């Protein structure tokens, strides 16, 4: 298709095999089909039992259900009823997050909770910001190109068609993208607010290219999903249905094709038949019950996020896998990555009211690739963000203010605009999820996550902070407040070419087990400096294709 024709067709080409957008109700936000959802007997051997109804698990379920597979998803959190359960309020959104106990350690402990993972049907994307960039082709071969990180056993080419299809399903809106593998988006860019415009001007003065988007937010007509109303509560769950999450993009179609979601159910073990080494199903505990239940399945896929997936594997011990499923080479839980996510805010003479409009607006990948003159390998991306008041208070506190000084900065909220980076921090085997001493109410040991940065990571973060300061100064900021933070966990069950240095093969299958797969961000060997959700969905989409064609290795 020529570029011009594609431009004319913006918003007109829908996804090929996903009716979610038509199944949604224009006036109600409930997931259509919950009442008429298929139910499978626990004793019935379904084709696939998936742990986790998040980004990875939902796409996998939707794809395979369309091919006639009988699929059950076990989901720890609730089945949302957004009209009643979600609120246009920061503190009131506490229930969306994974707030069960976890222990954090290492030299640079990573704060979890609202910052990192969700719990409930739809997973973390229910309250993710909405940025949907692709990984760059270089991300799949950082070891070969830059001598750091790892090479994936698959390449960008393997994912490209899946990226395109998922971008149509979300749908992604943004300007034509000049970085990585240059591409266009199915929907036009959203208008941007004054707060983001100020920052963009600063970037232009610094010679930094930025583009509007890419965001998974409806801009125009998309089935029964409304246009964004620029209310700015993307991180609290979109009550409008404008922002993409599996709850609106894949689960309606999945339910329509016979998927059962068993909510309020915590998977505690994958069962292995010691005679033949095959998984027989998943053991789980329902909220309010004491006895364990078991769902039998021909295949099992784990998609519980980079903390819970390793935790579940480590807890699934058997004679063949005394140290946890897939952990005979001591690889499970290693190489967990986060992105550096420093944010800097600038003060401007006029009111900007950054709380309006979706937090994700304008971004740049100009610094994504290695540039030896910077003195470190790999790079970072730049994105506008916009904290609501509690987030802004944490930002002010991080700059060392409390009491009267904090109140003064808080009263000045409407004059500030915030920009952040995402640094590609490198994978390290010691950055690891293990089981802690304490147990949760299900009797399962809680996860402990240790994290420390390398010298390369520190150099990357220090350099990118100066770039942010440069943008803010050029934009005319009168004062700057900075918070150092982290975001986006991936890794922990990475894919590779040999069992000695990975947990799954290029088809996400756990080494040494014929029928257990990992279907979330845990499989990523590197993370680039792109937000991961789109890639997680594209990977699950590819996995579904491989499983359906039984081409799996």
């Amino acid at each position, binding site marked *: 298709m020529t570029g011009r024709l594609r431009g004319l067709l913006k918003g007109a080409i829908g996804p090929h095999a996903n009716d979610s957008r038509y199944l949604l109700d224009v006036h109600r936000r409930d997931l259509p089909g919950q009442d008429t959802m298929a139910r499978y007997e626990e004793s019935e051997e379904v084709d696939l039992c998936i742990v986790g109804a998040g980004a990875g698990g939902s796409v996998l379920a939707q794809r395979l259900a369309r091919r006639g597979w009988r699929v059950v998803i076990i989901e720890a959190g609730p089945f949302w009823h957004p009209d009643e359960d979600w609120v246009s309020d920061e503190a009131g959104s506490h229930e969306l997050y994974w*707030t069960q106990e976890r222990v954090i350690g290492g030299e640079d402990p990573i704060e979890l909770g609202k910052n990192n993972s969700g719990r409930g049907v739809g997973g973390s994307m229910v309250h993710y910001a909405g940025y949907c960039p692709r990984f760059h082709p270089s991300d799949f071969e950082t070891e070969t190109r830059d001598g750091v990180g790892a090479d994936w056993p698959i390449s960008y080419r393997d994912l490209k068609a899946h990226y395109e299809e998922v971008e149509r399903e979300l749908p992604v809106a943004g300007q034509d993208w000049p970085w990585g593998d240059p591409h266009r988006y199915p929907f036009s860019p959203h208008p941007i607010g004054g707060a983001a415009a100020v920052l963009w001007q600063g970037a232009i003065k610094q010679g930094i290219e930025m583009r509007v988007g890419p965001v998974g937010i409806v801009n125009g007509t998309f089935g029964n999903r409304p246009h964004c109303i620029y209310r700015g509560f993307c991180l609290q769950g979109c009550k409008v249905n404008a922002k993409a999450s599996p709850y609106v993009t894949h689960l309606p179609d999945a339910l329509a094709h016979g998927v059962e979601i068993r909510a309020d159910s915590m998977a505690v073990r994958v069962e292995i038949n010691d005679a033949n080494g095959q998984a027989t199903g998943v053991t789980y505990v329902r909220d309010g019950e004491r006895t364990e239940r078991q769902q039998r399945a021909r295949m099992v896929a784990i998609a519980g996020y980079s903390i819970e997936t390793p935790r579940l594997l480590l807890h699934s011990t058997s004679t063949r896998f005394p140290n946890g499923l897939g952990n005979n080479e001591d690889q499970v839980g290693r190489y967990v990555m986060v992105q550096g996510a420093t944010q800097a805010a600038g003060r401007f003479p006029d009111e900007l009211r950054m709380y309006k409009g979706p937090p994700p607006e304008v971004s740049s990948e100009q610094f994504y690739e290695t540039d030896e003159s910077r003195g470190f390998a790999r790079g970072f991306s730049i994105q506008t963000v916009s904290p609501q008041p509690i987030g802004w208070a944490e930002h002010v506190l991080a700059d060392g203010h409390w009491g009267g000084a904090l109140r003064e900065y808080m009263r000045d909220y409407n004059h500030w605009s915030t920009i952040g980076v995402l640094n590609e921090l490198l994978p390290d085997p010691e950055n690891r999820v293990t089981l802690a001493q304490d147990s949760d109410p299900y009797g399962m040991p809680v996860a402990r996550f240790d994290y420390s940065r390398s010298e390369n990571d520190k150099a990357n973060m220090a350099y990118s902070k100066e770039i942010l300061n440069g943008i803010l100064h050029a934009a005319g900021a009168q*004062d700057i407040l900075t918070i150092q933070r982290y975001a986006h966990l991936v890794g922990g069950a990475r894919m590779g070419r040999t069992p000695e240095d990975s947990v799954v093969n290029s088809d996400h299958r756990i080494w040494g087990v014929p029928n257990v797969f990992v279907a979330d961000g845990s499989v990523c060997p590197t993370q680039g400096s792109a937000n991961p959700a789109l890639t997680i969905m594209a990977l699950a989409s590819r996995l579904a294709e491989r499983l359906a064609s039984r081409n799996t290795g």
Partner: protein
Amino acid sequence: MAAERDLRTPRHLPNLRPGRQPPHPSWLPRQRVGTTPQMIGRYPDYDVLASADTWDPATREVVTERLREHGPLRFFTTEEEPTLRAFCDVATAQDSDPRIPVAEMVDDKLAAGRLDGYRYAGMPRDPDAWRLVLRGLDETARARYGRAGFAACDPQAREAIIGALAEGLLSGGAWDELDVSRAFSVCMRAILEAFYSHPWAWNEIGYGGPAYPLGYMRLGPLAVREPRERRGASAEDPVRAVEELQP
């Protein structure tokens, strides 16, 4: 006009002032509609609650519930209560009524067992960390200032103790059972979440608040205020106001 011009300058911002200290809030007028903590009027004619009838019912319920009268504390003991209140007051600079009931809101969170989803290795659970911090504040007040407890200290002493807590500079007694600066961040997390979830604080900072199903239309750069939002105001030059306050 004068008011608008004042707010274009950043002279009131702590980083740009000696000792990173803010001006006394009396440089701002008194709130004229609705309520703000201590009635500080940075947006003197703005009351977010005036648009509560446009919010969806679920949100309205969650937000207006924060305005209700609170009963006695459930998690903290009567011995801990004065220290808790004094700590919350200093941390959020609430030196007079009307106050946002931060102590009650923190107590509510801990009594309900709401966790944040992580705990630093080597740190006790959040509820235990809170109790240790309150004990530590009293111990420091006794050791350094010879007072019966933190709440009995004068405002300067309280601020000095919290400053030392923020810097991680306290040791001995309860402090040795904690990582002191992490403990400060655990407490501040809960305190700030309470304070800035309260609609009175939204009035103070001029925040538009819940916006469903209404949404926002005036995103800037030309127009930034919806009809329901109000401009900020200040009648005085903060530099002069503070010079006058100083003896």
